[in-house]
């Protein structure tokens, strides 16, 4: 059997970018601009996919003038305490590179056609604003509500990137510890695709579908992709892990909540960014309480019979409501109709604070990379954007994508990748067998139902308050689901088959998650181990690393890397590339204050 006979479509390219989001597009665009053949695959449609597809109002992670980069990096590491608690969770060298190249990437972004200035024109004013969520420093810029994804998509097409929409990654192809391509699936036509590439850039986003979807809250309108079924099933993470890439921090979920009671969490009381409105919470009678809800305060209220408590949006201004309407009408008009039918009135509605749970893996979790964004265990695999450990949000996603795209011609030359790797037909037939198996199992389990069951296990048995017995039961339940249904899902049409592949990835990643949790029977990051309530300070800066070696999972607990000597010893006033183009404005703004 040869490659041509097994693949419905076969491509050869220099660079394969997996995921056409805010990191993937810049990587593809930059590599194509540098003269390489680039193919970008996207499970959805590139013009409308990804976290930034509903527009962005800010872009962050810009170092301030006159502040040494190492202080920015230290602050960046410290900022993660807000989400994860004490200790270090991210490689500072990654932080350094994203700060150092932030203004350069901003310039590239403008070249791509994304309007990043407050005032129109190439010399228009750049508006630096405080990052209200993390507090204080003016390290982000405000931009007009921009759907940068359309701009990026058009730029990619113009640069000659071959964009393949509705194509999903199945598995990576490897040869002697190096990635040489990928197997993919067309989610509309159902065809099996093989793409041979010298380098693969993974930009498939984080994993958000291991837990039940988020509890709806008003401030999440802008962030509703967290619970969106159309994305973030961890396809990139799972494929990279199966191929031998190392993942880190997979014990830590993302949770933007305070703990009020063991089963009740309160969202951090802030409507994001520059909206200018704080979240408020009240008891049933409408009495307001301090913004930082605490377990003690909640206990007092409970004792006084004043619970349940509510989050209120009655104070939000008309513009805020209008913005939500616009975003909703633009994307899912039916939600407005349903809300009306159910008697929802945004000016009066209050949300009861109810049991909430983890919802996402982000920022600290993901593929382990060095400062060139190449995987530390799998050569030729680069990870950019949210899927890479330590990266999160639009700014670092674009920066990492641009850096990798820029470095590709040199990398391919230095690694002597002048011809494609040799294909191991076993890897391709294995991927094809998975597709064929799901396609020929019409009596199998509905993958959508199975996904719900798998996510329920995480919510109930893993969650934020961990316990060995709970985890064991979770593992048993996952085992039984895997045994029954992992190979037995109904993929009788292309959409269902895509969901089968997604559920396969979610199950694999849930196993990684459970393994990671078992490895750390201690209170750590943002979770509590019931019974061992104290943190272990000696292991504060130690992270859990996981990878597959010869088909077996390997787990190591190691120290987070230190900032490299060359960065520690760099001069405090070292020039930051392209900063001059933007700093003038920031300086003026600082002086004004």
């Amino acid at each position, binding site marked *: 059997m040869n490659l041509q006979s097994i693949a419905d479509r076969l491509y050869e390219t220099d660079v394969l970018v997996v995921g056409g989001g805010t990191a993937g597009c810049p990587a593809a665009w930059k590599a194509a601009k540098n003269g390489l053949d680039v193919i970008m695959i996207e499970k959805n449609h590139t013009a409308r996919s990804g976290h930034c597809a509903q527009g962005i109002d800010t872009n962050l992670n810009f170092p301030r003038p006159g502040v040494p980069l190492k202080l920015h990096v230290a602050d960046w590491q410290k900022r993660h305490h807000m989400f994860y608690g004490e200790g270090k969770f991210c490689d500072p060298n990654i932080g350094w590179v994203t700060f150092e190249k932030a203004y350069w990437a901003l310039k590239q972004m403008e070249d791509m056609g994304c309007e990043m200035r407050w005032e129109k024109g190439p010399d228009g004013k750049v508006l630096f604003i405080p990052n209200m969520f993390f507090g204080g420093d003016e390290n982000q810029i405000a931009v007009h509500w921009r759907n940068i994804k359309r701009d990026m998509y058009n730029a990619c097409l113009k640069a000659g990137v071959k964009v393949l929409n509705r194509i999903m990654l199945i598995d990576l192809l490897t040869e002697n510890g190096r990635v040489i391509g990928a197997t993919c699936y067309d989610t509309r036509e159902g065809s099996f695709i093989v793409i041979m590439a010298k380098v693969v850039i993974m930009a498939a986003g984080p994993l958000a579908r291991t837990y039940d979807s988020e509890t709806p809250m008003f401030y999440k309108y802008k962030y509703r992709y967290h619970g969106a079924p159309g994305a973030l099933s961890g396809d990139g993470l799972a494929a990279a892990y199966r191929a031998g890439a190392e993942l880190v921090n997979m014990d830590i979920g993302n949770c933007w909540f305070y703990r009020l009671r063991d089963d009740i969490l309160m969202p951090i009381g802030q409507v994001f960014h520059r909206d200018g409105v704080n979240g408020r919470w009240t008891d049933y009678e409408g009495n307001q309480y301090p913004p930082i809800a605490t377990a003690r305060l909640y206990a007092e209220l409970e004792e006084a019979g004043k619970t349940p408590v509510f989050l209120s949006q009655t104070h939000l201004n008309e*513009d805020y409501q209008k913005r939500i309407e616009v975003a909703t009408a633009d994307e899912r008009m039916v939600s407005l109709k349903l809300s009306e039918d159910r008697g929802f009135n945004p000016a009066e509605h209050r949300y009861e604070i109810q049991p909430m749970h983890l919802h996402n893996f982000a920022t600290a979790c993901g593929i382990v990379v060095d400062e060139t964004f190449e995987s530390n265990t799998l050569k030729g695999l680069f990870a950019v954007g949210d899927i890479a450990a330590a990266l999160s949000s639009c700014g670092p996603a674009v920066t990492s994508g641009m850096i990798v795209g820029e470095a590709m011609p040199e990398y391919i030359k230095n690694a002597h990748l002048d011809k494609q790797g040799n294909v191991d037909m076993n890897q391709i037939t294995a991927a094809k067998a998975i597709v064929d198996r799901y396609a020929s199992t019409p009596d199998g389990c509905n993958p959508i139902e199975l996904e719900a069951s798998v996510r329920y296990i995480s919510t109930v048995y893993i969650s934020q308050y961990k316990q060995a017995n709970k985890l064991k039961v979770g593992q048993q339940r996952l085992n039984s689901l895997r045994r029954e249904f992992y190979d037995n899902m109904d993929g009788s049409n292309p959409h269902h088959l895509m969901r089968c592949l997604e559920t396969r990835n979610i199950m694999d990643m849930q196993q990684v998650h459970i393994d990671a949790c078992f490895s750390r029977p201690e209170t750590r990051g943002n979770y509590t181990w019931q019974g061992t309530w104290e943190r272990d300070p000696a292991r504060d800066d130690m992270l859990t690393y996981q990878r597959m070696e010869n088909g077996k999972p390997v787990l190591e607990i190691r120290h987070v890397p230190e900032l490299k000597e060359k960065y520690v010893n760099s001069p405090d006033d070292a020039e930051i590339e392209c900063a001059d183009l933007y700093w003038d404005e920031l300086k003026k703004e600082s002086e004004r204050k």
Partner: protein
Amino acid sequence: MKLELKPGDYESKFEFPILKLIRQKAEELDISYCAAADIVVPEYQKTVRYRDHEFEHEVMMSNDAEFKQAIQEYYERKE
């Protein structure tokens, strides 16, 4: 400080202004809601003072002041 709560009024139904406009446009031109939304949404968006920096700052500050007062009142009440 108490948030002002209106009693639930289930007699009059709340309508999202944007949906109302979309319905009207769809009926007027005899087109689908989706096609009408393409016409209505960009126009409606222009009525949002979304990037009025001064305005946002003002609202933020007044909210903040009001909020601090609410907290102060809470602790005074406690004492």
